[in-house]
């Protein structure tokens, strides 16, 4: 990286050229440090890194996805956030936003991959279909698996944007007709940061990229390779309705008095207690609100397999193979009742089948007792 340090623009240079003031830049640095969960004393370090670090090229791939991750990203609330990434980190290739198209676009991508081999960040949005030789998702006449393997080969870091690339999301839900898989199932030899969510929060996405840009390392990751700064807590643990949960005050349905009072949505299927994300703290749309604040339970979009763990408005997911929408409780109750009947029948049958034995042992016992008394 050092060799190219002076050849490429630094982040500060490009931001200034774009028309932002240095003050804006410092605000941005402070902002990002706060999101990454760093203390104020590190703000200077963030700013210095952004002043001196040359821009890192980014290749942003789109496979089986809906582009909600990109949408979320360009709406992250500080203007420099999207500018710095989209314009300034030299986003060399992204289907949705680049000006080039067709052969030109592919040529630009290949040029970046060659020139910055081993340096660029590969961002992947969307899952990769493996079914029918991967033909369910083709770009420029080649399959997504092909593109991914090629781009991953020279990447310094791979970031899996959103639930598609991290967990498979809706297209990997049962019966998964295209055999869609998250990218860590294909690329095994590179560090992959998983940033799940459908979509992930824009500030979280920016935080991950800026962390890499600033420190040259990946942010601290948990066991599922999610950045701890954003995915260490359940939404439940930072939810402003949590006191209602602990007090046992729950909305029973969406139109009752309790829902109106803003009670906990636990009983109407809120997935907050099972979902690791920052919605309760960073929130959405420039910190305006998040689903629970708007009166709807969390659907757990950043969790693995959340589509198949439905229905969204029930606490416990239904049990496949036990009839339509049977829950573990219904199966359990039915089995326990059947067992109760079975045990009663067995008890009656035992007394009938072993009546002679019982008669004998009762007689014997009476005899023995009599003898003991005589002794």
């Amino acid at each position, binding site marked *: 990286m050092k060799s190219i340090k002076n050849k490429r623009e630094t982040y500060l240079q490009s931001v200034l050229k774009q028309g932002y003031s240095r003050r804006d830049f410092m605000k941005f640095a402070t902002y990002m440090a706060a999101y990454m969960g760093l203390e104020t004393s590190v703000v200077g370090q963030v700013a210095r890194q952004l002043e001196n670090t040359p821009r890192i090229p980014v290749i942003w791939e789109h496979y089986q996805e809906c582009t909600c991750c990109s949408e979320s990203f360009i709406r992250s609330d500080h203007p420099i956030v999207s500018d710095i990434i989209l314009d300034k980190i030299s986003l060399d290739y992204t289907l949705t936003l680049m000006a080039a198209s067709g052969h030109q676009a592919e040529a630009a991508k290949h040029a970046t991959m060659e020139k910055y081999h081993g340096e660029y960040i590969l961002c992947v949005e969307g899952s990769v279909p493996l079914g029918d030789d991967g033909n369910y998702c083709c770009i420029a006449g080649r399959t997504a698996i092909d593109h991914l393997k090629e781009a991953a080969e020279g990447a310094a870091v791979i970031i899996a944007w959103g639930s598609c690339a991290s967990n498979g999301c809706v297209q990997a839900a049962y019966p998964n007709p295209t055999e869609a898989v998250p990218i860590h199932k294909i690329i095994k030899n590179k560090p992959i940061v998983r940033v799940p969510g459908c979509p992930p929060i824009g500030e979280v996405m920016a935080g991950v990229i800026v962390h890499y840009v600033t420190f040259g390392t990946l942010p601290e990751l948990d066991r599922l390779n999610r950045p701890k700064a954003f995915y260490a807590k359940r939404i439940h643990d930072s939810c402003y309705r949590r006191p209602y949960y602990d*007090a046992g005050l729950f909305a029973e349905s969406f139109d009752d008095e309790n829902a109106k009072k803003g009670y906990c949505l636990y009983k109407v299927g809120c997935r907050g207690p099972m979902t690791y994300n920052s919605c309760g703290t960073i929130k959405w749309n420039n910190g305006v609100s998040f689903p629970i604040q708007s009166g709807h339970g969390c659907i*757990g979009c950043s969790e693995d*397999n959340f589509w198949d763990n439905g229905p969204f408005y029930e606490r416990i997911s239904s049990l496949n193979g036990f009839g339509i929408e049977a829950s573990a409780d219904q199966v359990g109750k039915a089995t326990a009742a059947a067992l109760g009947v079975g045990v009663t029948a067995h008890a009656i049958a035992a007394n009938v089948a072993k009546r002679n034995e019982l008669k004998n042992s009762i007689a014997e016992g009476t005899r023995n007792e009599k003898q003991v008394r005589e002794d």
Partner: protein
Amino acid sequence: MASTKKDLTFKRVYVWELPVRIFHWANALCITVLAATGFVIANPPAIMSSTEASGQFWFGTVRYIHFATAYIFLGAMILRIYWAFVGNRYANWRSFLPLTQKALLNIRHVLQIDILLGVDKEHRLGNIAIGHNAVAGASYVVLFLLALVQVATGFGLYEPMSAFFVADLFSWVIPLFGSDFTVRFIHHAVTWLMILFVIIHVYLVFYHDWLEGRGEVSSMFSGYKFVLTDRIKPEDTLEGETPPAQEEEPWVEDEKTPAAEAH
């Protein structure tokens, strides 16, 4: 009945040692409390109250009881594992696994006589196991595995809320299953399996008590069972004798108890 009076001399034998009984009742209590609070946590009752959230904490208390009981459950489990190595031959881990020819024959006998309700051609008290029979032993192994699943999934779900090292030992559980959904579901479903176990267990204890007349139920309170004099072994403790201090030299005791003796 082929038995004569001489065959039927019984003595009270110390079968279930105190740690075994403490474990049994602690376990029974824990499972009851954990299942009850667990179902409340899974589906809290609708309590309408005009009190503000700041003025009540009942759901938090139910969860607290669940978590505290979970620690006791885990502690009792560790005690029992220890005792499976230092306890008497009825408490030893070998008595739970059908490892010997005798145990396999016992399984067949229990299935024929107790489950399918056959009648022995010749009623011999020697056929009845002194401790738990081989099928019961195997069922406790199943219960133990279910309990392990409950401990792992339960503490796995609890771990993100706790900084205590015991809970942190289970931080691998949720990544292993991929999400809290799955772990929660397993935790809930296995509760039902444990309830099914309890139904069968309680029924069969009364069944044996009623048909065999050896004090099956009261033995888990007193520790003593009536055993045919011929079947008592030198290492067994009879009523009135002081139980040997086995925990002092468990390795010696281990050598003295070959696997074949497990009933």
